[in-house]
């Protein structure tokens, strides 16, 4: 008995000397434990898209999750087992092309995880997953092998049977740690695995092209809502409806390998922002009603997927539908497109190029007006030059759809490049706000605003003072850039929240799918944030205030009045404005009785014959998780150990009982 006490004291001493070191584990419950075990990674997926002849994009190969250990990609090392490969951003292109050519390598790829780009990475190389001549089939000229985008690799147009995710900055560190841990523990029985959930409904249902998947309702067509507005508002009831129309257009959608990271800062959002700033500048000018020509502005969506917006707009013009009431096709004198203008700034000089189709009197007038506008801003160092005559024609732009429809249309595209794209990140997730310059956008906006004023006044006695009065609000441009091209402040910025309640903070300009029946007065919940913002912004800027600025709680009864800011707390104001939504979707599709059907090719719609009819697969949930896994053998050892402990204990108890009983009976 006496031996025991010193023993116990020794134990006490022993533990007193140990100190608690390191960070305390702050788990307080079993759900916390579960969360520490399974780490959800935020990332941007590449999804399955379908066309009439097949599929592109990425998907899980079946109905199950894909689980594989995380391995870092090294060009020289072959993969020994099915792995989730961690690739850095600049290796992605070479990695994916290696998969195409090396099938044994490809066989061991379970999934791909792309790190977010390092700030210090060499940005001069460029990265573009688009093709070398995007949408070449719609070109109004023969030379479709011309390379407008020489850096283009075309990797986004291939089909991949495995999931691909792009990581955010924070999750890149987590994955790198996991890959390093796996390398250190190569022989051990544990591994860090990635679990991909990118199960696409079209894969599950076995529908591998647009027509079947639309019939089975496992996919939805790409599209959205374009927005057009006129300055000043068109008086539909008045008899004088014969003012010639100058149509100025820009696009609001971009594309990239990763669905939710398509910012398209230079192509085409820089053009959109400069046009919005130009409209804002023009809206403050007096005497807009006295202009001889009508200014109409339109912002297309779906252009990256076969000029869906522009083609549908032209189709609706032919039909004279409600969406385009007030516009007469024959009155459109000139179509001016503002393409990518964000990179036109070089050493203090802002340089832009005009790409024109056939020479016509309207085009010449426009070029003269541009020169006049440029001259009125001598101090700004803006130079506008015609594009190289050896170009085969206009660059990929919405104007191509106009020219294909009517080859005699007068049109002009304003771009920041001459013979090849100056944007080295065309249609990639890296075409973000750091890729453009706000001075270039401001310069383009001033140029466009003054040119349009000159054109609309029919070049007659436009005084220098009138032109000088047209000034672009630089802070508006910077605010729009922050709202539409960055996550901070993103769509929660004041400018956007003044008009709509956005559904997300980080903007993304992927066209998305068109929900429910397309109409000119869609249910706002089915219209995406960008279109709703544009509609409200344009309606506000081009408006004439209605009587008393009444609230629209009971609707707007005046003719030509619409409700602006309906979603905000103030519940909206009635203004007089001509601002409408135009659905943007393929002219080969028709929505009837709740489903989409693909129409047969029609010779009256030559562009429809070329249209691939893009659709996007439906899915249940998309996600990426990382956790540690131990060998199956280890699990079985544990089970055997548990069973053997139980059995041994039973035997011991039975033996003890026998011994005790015998001892008691020994009388």
């Amino acid at each position: 008995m006496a031996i025991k006490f010193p023993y116990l004291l020794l134990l006490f001493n022993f533990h007193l000397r140990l100190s608690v070191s390191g960070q305390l584990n702050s788990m307080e419950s079993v759900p916390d434990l579960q969360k520490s075990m399974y780490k959800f990674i935020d990332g941007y997926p590449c999804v399955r898209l379908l066309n009439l002849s097949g599929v592109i994009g990425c998907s899980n190969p079946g109905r199950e999750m894909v689980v594989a250990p995380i391995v870092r990609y090294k060009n020289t090392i072959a993969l020994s087992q099915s792995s989730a490969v961690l690739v850095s951003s600049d290796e992605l292109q070479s990695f994916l092309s290696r998969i195409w050519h090396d099938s044994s390598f490809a066989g061991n790829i379970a999934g791909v995880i792309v790190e977010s780009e390092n700030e210090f990475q060499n940005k001069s190389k460029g990265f573009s997953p688009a093709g070398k001549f995007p949408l070449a089939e719609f070109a109004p000229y023969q030379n479709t092998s011309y390379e407008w985008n020489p850096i283009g690799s075309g990797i986004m147009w291939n089909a991949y049977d495995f999931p691909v995710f792009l990581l955010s900055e924070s999750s890149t560190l987590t994955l790198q740690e996991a890959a390093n841990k796996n390398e250190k523990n190569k022989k051990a029985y544990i591994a860090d695995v990635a679990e991909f959930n990118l199960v696409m409904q079209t894969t599950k249902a076995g529908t591998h092209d647009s027509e079947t998947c639309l019939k089975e309702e496992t996919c939805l067509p790409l599209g959205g809502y374009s927005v057009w507005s006129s300055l000043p508002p068109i008086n539909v009831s008045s008899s004088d409806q014969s003012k010639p129309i100058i149509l100025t257009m820009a696009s609001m959608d971009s594309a990239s390998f990763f669905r939710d990271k398509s910012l398209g800062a230079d192509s085409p959002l820089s053009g959109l922002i400069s046009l919005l700033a130009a409209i804002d500048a023009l809206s403050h000018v007096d005497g807009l009603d006295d202009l001889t020509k009508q200014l109409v502005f339109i912002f297309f969506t779906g252009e990256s997927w076969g000029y869906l917006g522009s083609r549908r707009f032209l189709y609706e013009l032919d039909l004279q539908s409600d969406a385009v009431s007030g516009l007469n096709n024959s009155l459109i004198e000139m179509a001016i497109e503002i393409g990518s203008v964000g990179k036109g700034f070089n050493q203090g000089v802002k340089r832009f190029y005009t790409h024109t189709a056939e020479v016509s009197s309207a085009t010449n007038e426009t070029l003269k007006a541009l020169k006049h506008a440029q001259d009125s801003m001598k101090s700004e160092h803006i130079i506008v030059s015609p594009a190289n005559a050896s170009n085969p024609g206009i660059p990929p732009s919405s104007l191509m759809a106009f020219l294909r429809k009517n080859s005699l249309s007068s049109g002009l595209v304003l771009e920041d490049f001459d013979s090849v794209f100056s944007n080295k990140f065309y249609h990639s997730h890296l075409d973000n706000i750091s890729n453009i310059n706000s001075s270039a956008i401001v310069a383009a906006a001033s140029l466009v605003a003054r040119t349009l004023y000159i054109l609309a006044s029919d070049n007659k006695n436009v005084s220098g003072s009138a032109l000088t009065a047209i000034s672009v609000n630089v802070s508006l441009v910077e605010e729009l850039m922050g709202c539409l091209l960055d996550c901070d402040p993103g769509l929660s910025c004041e400018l956007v929240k003044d008009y709509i309640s956005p559904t997300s903070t980080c903007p993304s300009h992927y066209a998305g799918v068109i929900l429910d029946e397309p109409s000119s007065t869609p249910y706002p919940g089915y219209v995406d944030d960008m279109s709703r913002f544009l509609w409200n912004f344009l309606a506000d800027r081009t408006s004439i205030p209605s009587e008393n600025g009444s609230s629209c709680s009971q609707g707007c009864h005046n003719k030509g009045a619409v409700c602006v800011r309906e979603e905000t707390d103030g519940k909206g104001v009635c203004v007089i404005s001509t601002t409408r939504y135009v659905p943007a979707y393929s002219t080969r599709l028709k929505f009837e009785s709740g489903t989409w059907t693909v129409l047969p090719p029609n010779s009256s719609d030559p562009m429809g014959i070329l249209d691939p009819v893009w659709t996007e697969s439906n899915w249940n949930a998309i996600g990426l998780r990382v956790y540690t896994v131990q060998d199956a053998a280890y699990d079985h050892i544990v089970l055997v150990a548990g069973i053997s402990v139980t059995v041994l204990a039973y035997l011991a108890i039975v033996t003890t009982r026998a011994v005790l009983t015998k001892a008691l009976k020994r009388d």
Partner: protein
Amino acid sequence: MTVAAGIGYALLALGPSLSLFVSVISKKPFLILTVLSSTLLWLTSLIVLSGVWRVFLPLKSTSWWPYGLLIFTSIAFQEGLRVLFWKVYKRLEDLLDNFADKVSKPRLFQTDKMQIALAGGLGHGVAHAVFFCLSLLTPAFGPATFFVDRCSQIPFFLVSAIIALAFVTIHTFSMVIAFNGYAEGNKVDQVFVPVVHLVAGMVTLVNFASGGCIIGIPLLYFIASLTLIHCGKMVWRRLTENRSRQGN
């Protein structure tokens, strides 16, 4: 891990208790009742303790002594409850003996009393294992495993199962020692049980140190085997002296 590993961990912690239950306890209904009431008592003690300590939790401290204080007060309370448990049992024993006299059946034997104590201890042990190991085991049935930073060689669930097994052993056999100590008036046994419980509790603090579980777990098993051996010696002594008394 998987279902196999999850079942393995559960069996590691509670397998011997299950064997004990099946071979000894399940034969006598009174023992089953004792196990259940003892489990309930132990869980109630935890509820009371958590109510008292709620104000101070979670303990966001990097030093060990707030945890030490927590363990000390909890063990002190539980040992106090053990005395209460003994007093209730004593009254019950007297009731049973009187009833046996009335119906001219034999009184409780020494082995019966020890079995009741064993059942009481088992109740405490099972409650501990369920509360501190089984309740955490749900994530173990999924595909992932988990390692704590400070014990990175052994999976967390394995550590908790092994520790639970040690405590089941300590609780089960401590009760036999304690009841015997109170019955005989044996001061050594009466002090032995709380001290062992306290030491075992404090030894788990060793796991706070980085890599501490490699030292902590063997220590804990040392204490458990100490308890087992002491209990065995005491039982043997009591039964042999009883027999010799009867033999006279």
